[in-house]
């Protein structure tokens, strides 16, 4: 145990000794399992003829939906494209909780080098975010593959590309937790932080991403939105399927853009709130 590892271990201990992490994990699992189960049943039903294709009005982006080869990864990708809110919330709650419950005082007394504490929190949340990624995948891949298999569709679990997707999903969820930490230090008010997370991820960003596809110029900007970058990193999402022709980043570009959001927010928050007087 040295000066770097001790604060990291303390941050893990903070997360694991309150109830929030497993409540979020439980809700995440249920939510993703529901979506994966429903969609796998829908596509499975269409494929097996149990549901007539005429009964489905699939709107604009039908191209990807009929090519059955892409259906399992699409269902698996819901782990990140829907579940990413959960690591953001966990990161934001871990940070804003320190302000709200005034635990910054005992924290900074035990570790007076404040940058070290924020670094430790970021490291701990990367691991927790990855763990939430595993939980989300257990729902999307576990439940999704089971239902697809039930309809006689190959869940592609032997496919290397599927496992690539799984690995990139874990990575994306880890980086989203860093963004949560960054948001928490930028906006230390817990209520404001949660409102921003929910409003931005559930409403503002989807609208912006949709609107940005209207012209080439806005599309070139829109692909840098965090959700678009995350989808690019994972490599598959219902959103990119629903906006055919939309500009996308490559996988590694998406990952770097997403990480940049997290690190920039954390660094800015360090100066805005973390270094301030604790009164």
């Amino acid at each position, binding site marked *: 145990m040295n000066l770097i590892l001790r604060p990291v271990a303390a941050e893990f*201990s903070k997360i694991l*000794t309150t109830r929030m992490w497993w409540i979020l994990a439980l809700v995440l699992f249920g939510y993703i399992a529901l979506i994966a189960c429903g969609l796998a049943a829908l596509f499975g039903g269409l494929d097996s003829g149990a549901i007539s294709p005429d009964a489905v009005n699939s709107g604009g982006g039908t191209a990807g939906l009929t090519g059955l080869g892409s259906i399992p990864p699409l269902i698996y990708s819901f782990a990140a494209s829907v579940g990413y809110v959960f690591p953001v919330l966990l990161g934001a709650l871990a940070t804003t909780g320190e302000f709200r*419950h005034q635990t910054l005082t*005992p924290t900074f007394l*035990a570790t*007076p080098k404040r940058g070290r504490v924020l670094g430790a929190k970021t490291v701990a949340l990367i691991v927790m975010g990855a763990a939430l990624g595993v939980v989300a995948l257990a729902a999307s891949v576990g439940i999704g593959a089971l239902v697809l298999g039930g309809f006689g569709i190959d869940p592609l679990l032997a496919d290397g590309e599927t496992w690539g997707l799984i690995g990139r999903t874990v990575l994306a969820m880890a980086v989203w937790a860093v963004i949560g930490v960054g948001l928490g230090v930028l906006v230390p008010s817990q209520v404001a932080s949660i409102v921003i997370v929910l409003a931005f991820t559930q409403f503002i960003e989807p609208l912006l991403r949709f609107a940005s596809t209207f012209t080439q110029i806005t599309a070139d900007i829109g692909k840098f939105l965090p959700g678009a970058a995350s989808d690019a990193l994972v490599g598959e999402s219902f959103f990119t399927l629903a906006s055919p022709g939309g500009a996308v980043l490559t996988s590694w570009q998406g990952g770097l853009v997403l990480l940049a959001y997290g690190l920039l927010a954390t660094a800015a928050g360090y100066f805005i709130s973390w270094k301030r007087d604790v009164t």
Partner: protein
Amino acid sequence: MPLGAVIEFTNITKKFGQVTAVNDLSFTVEPGRVTGFLGPNGAGKTTTLRMLLGLVAPTSGTATFGGLRYRDLARPLNTVGAALEAANFHPGRTAAHHLGVYTTAAGIPRTRVAEVLHTVGLAEHATQRVGGYSLGMRQRLGLAYSLLGDPGVLVLDEPINGLDPEGIKWIRGFLSSMAAEGRTVLVSSHLLSEVQQSVDDVIIIAKGELVHSGPLSSLDTDIAPQVIVDSPDRDALVTALTEAGLAFTSGRTGLIVAVPDPGQVGHIAFAAGVELNVLHRQKAGLEDSFLALVEGGDSL
């Protein structure tokens, strides 16, 4: 046995915008003694202590432990133990987990958690969530946190607030025993009477400025001290005091004589053959001079 370090404030000043909360404070706190840091609410005590602990950045000046700033201490929790207020907890965490987080952060053996909880009398509430704690229990938990590293210096902000009489009695004995072991003990309070039984030295501030520092007895000088005396035969006592030429007034619990020495009054009564059932020095004198200091701002 950890050794106490000298706490030294040098010209420390804190301004919040236009408001000067602490103005050019300089004083030292010695090991082996309990030092009361006194002043009315809003005098700047908490801000001063937070500057000492590196939580608030001073506008100018320094505060050190044996010459080192808090953030430069190699093992802060093993050098300085601090309890600042009774609300630094996540309500959903148990007391043992709360303390465990910080033993992990500071590299202190986990066994200390049970030890300090036992010391402050919370052993049987160790696995209870802190959200259900009373104010007095939170005070004790804050104190437990300060003791984790068995530090040579204790800095406690209003530790007596919210304690029941039994707790107050306990903490007084506790502070004295810590100082007797050679530790530096700095305790803030807005009430002199709350700490006067346990402090050796006092630092008094008002409106962010130092108004007095010295041993507790130094408060006991200029403001006219008084002796309370009473007898089953009060008329005889009145006659004796009048004949001795002492000025006195009649109070609820006896006669209030305007002399500092109870022995002098006792001798007069003895010489006159008057039986006494009350003879003591008026203790409110300390509180009176404390109030005169923080209100008037005059030095003794």
